[in-house]
């Protein structure tokens, strides 16, 4: 009698899970550790990275404090980047800081204070994305994310989960705007995303 009961419970769990796909699931989120490593790897293909970054890759993890998924993802990515502190990208050290988004001027101030040259856009910033990207383009910052939809809206690089597999997303128009110069080797493995 164990079989029907266990299978019933599993199916119920499946049904409940299937019935409520989260925004994270719709975006196909890669676990933070893998996401961090993949994004750093992609940045290493940027031929102008070290020239623009000036000695150290400083990542601002921009998130919305009021959004729980945004907060959790930002924290998870910070932990992941901290665990990768022994890595270098184009001989540059890596550091990261949490940056809460409240408005664009506050963001500008925090980017200044942390001397960030790269922005990671956490989920939950759908409405604020345009302002973040405008600021990033003006300051020629790298912009990376783990949300597929954000790449189509102008983020340069995404690392997402497609099915059960990691996928690199690349927005070439955004790369041009933000001053990235990616090696064509990357194009063989990345999915090139058009801006919607």
């Amino acid at each position, binding site marked *: 009698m164990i079989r029907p009961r266990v299978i019933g419970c599993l199916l119920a769990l499946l049904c409940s899970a299937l019935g409520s796909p*989260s925004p994270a699931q719709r975006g*196909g989120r890669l676990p933070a550790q893998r996401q*961090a*490593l993949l994004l750093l790897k992609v940045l290493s293909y940027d031929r102008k990275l070290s020239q623009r970054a000036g000695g150290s890759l400083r990542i601002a993890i921009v998130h919305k404090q009021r959004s729980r998924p945004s907060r959790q993802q930002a924290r998870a990515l910070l932990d992941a980047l901290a665990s990768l502190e022994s*890595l*270098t*990208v184009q001989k540059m050290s890596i550091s990261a800081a949490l940056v809460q988004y409240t408005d664009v001027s506050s963001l500008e101030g925090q980017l200044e204070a942390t001397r960030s040259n790269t922005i990671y856009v956490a989920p939950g910033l759908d409405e604020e994305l345009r302002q973040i990207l405008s600021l990033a383009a003006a300051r020629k910052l790298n912009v990376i994310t783990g949300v597929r939809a954000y790449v189509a809206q102008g983020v340069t690089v995404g690392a997402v989960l497609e099915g059960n597999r990691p996928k690199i997303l690349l927005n070439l128009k955004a790369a041009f705007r933000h001053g990235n110069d990616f090696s064509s080797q990357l194009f063989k493995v990345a999915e090139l995303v058009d801006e919607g």
Partner: protein
Amino acid sequence: MLLLLLAPSPARANAHAVEDIPLEDLLQPVVAASRYEQRQQDAPAAVSVVSEEAIRSHGYRSLGEVLRSLRGVYTVDDRSYTYLGLRGFGIPGDYNTRVLLLLDGLRLNNNIYDTAYMGQDLPIDVNLIKRVELVRGPSSSVYGSNAFLGVINIVTLRGADLRGARATFGIGSLGTTEGSVAYGNLFGDRLDVLLTASFINSHGNEVLNYKEFAAPETRYGYVRGQDAEQVGRVMGQVSLAGATLRAAYATRQKEIPTASFGTVFAAPQLHYVDSHGFIDLRYSRTFADDLALLAHASYNVYWFEGDYPYDYGEPGDPPLLTLNRDTALGSWWNAHLQLSKTFLGRYKLLAGAELNDSFHQEQENFDIAPREVYLDRTDSTRALGAYLQAELRFLRRLTLNVGLRYDHYVGSFGGSLSPRGALLVQLFSETHLKALAGTAFRAPSAYERFYVFGEPGSGTAQLFNPNLAPERIQTYELLLEQQLGRSSRVQLGGYYYQIRDLIRLAQNASGDVSFQNLDQSHALGLELEGEVRWRGINARASYSLQRSWSSDTKRDLANSPRHLGKLNLLVPLSTDKLLLGLEAQAISARANHRGHQVSPTLLANATLVYQELLPGLTVRTSVKNLFDARYSDPGSIDHVQEAISQDGRTFWLTLSYHRGHSGSTR
């Protein structure tokens, strides 16, 4: 060494560059070692991966061919099935029960013989394989039974990999034609669909000769037109929002020319039919706080039919030909739930539970006319398992991976505990050491416990043994990996295995046989592998020195070569569209089950791939056994033959036409 590891280091003293991590490692991580994705160097086992590019570029036609390109792996083909040997363990005729075969994580070993399919009996067309992972050593700590000598995980293509339609047609030696059609696509970034069907039709060798039957009454050992093989496979898969529903069915019929199991030589009726189907529903979801859920439920069915022509006449009397038939029908449910979570970016916990309900294990053996039933029974087995694993990173350079699984077989073997531990140390920026220890078990199959054939006491019968207990293995392994620049690496490893209660066929006083928990066996080995990537050339070479022996008989185990050598080369030619795949495989002499030596083998294969010869068209031509070496694989206890002769040089031509955008190698 511990002091060295614990000593605080300057900030960048042990830094390593992200550029040194191959992108493929990040995009194609290993899943099979821990039931979640991780880099090869983080896996608590010695892992090898064969990519889709290597599979296509070497013209591999079966899973066995893919695997035997790897260090420590060899195969035996007895013209019925392909058997895998791993690190010196490869008991001929064991149906590969000591390896766990997974298809995207779904257990494929059937519930009658526990077979891991290595030949064309695999339910999936090799053209659908995206990569193959081989995890050496025990993994019962996460998988339970069968993950004994290793785990093989086949990762398949998805619709998004095809993004269009693909038709493949091939012809080859031995009167072989084969073809497949596949359509796959990703709709609206969420709905992934893959549909495929394939066939193989091979006449096989027109004439084979076995010197053990070189008598006038057995046609001087010649058997004609009895090596044919037909295969048909279909599969459909739909993925939406983290959920994947997949159904597949495959059937394979093989004529057997070897007169195995004491059947009448060259009688045309000897053949096997194996069919396997499944429906699999999987759901995976990663939550914002790095909590990952995987749920999985599958229904599987396996069917076997084998016809065996026997001469029941007394010696000197006229032949009394009777057709004996084996049938087996197995059905089982599998349900699996797993949660994993990463804490602080460096501690990962995994917990899971699994139910394997083999609710139908039917075996029959009977003479067709006059009908005489020797075996007609239906059994069931139910196993519950729960496991925990922790991957803990300390001091930047130390990772401890510990896992434990408890399996309970309701009403039969009781409980079994399987621990595994791994200490992964980054000695220097490009030097990694793995120290591994683990245990595993294999529960006896329904066939081994309950199969019966013939009259007990006749000296030719096989008897059942319901008291058969699980066999167990304990292993210790060290693996050192040195990265040499960005494009080369060397691995050196050593291992020691100890197996208790090994399940083998043994004779009793009257000459009848039954499966019994026999002896204690050991394996000891050294492995060396190097890989170089240079200007598009990819070269991998390995050498294995291994010995497996029984502590009771003090003799080497059957089919256990001392030396294995492998060389694989992928060379882009004048244009990047033309690729040459070369491989060489050397196997030293090995004993058969009677202790007689089978000669060493050196094989070479070559494949030329011309991609985009015309838009969408890829042409592949292969020559297998390039130098037409005459070689044999050891026969098993089921054969009169000391060794089973293998095919000489064969030629294969495959045309593949793809219409649509593809992110995958064709």
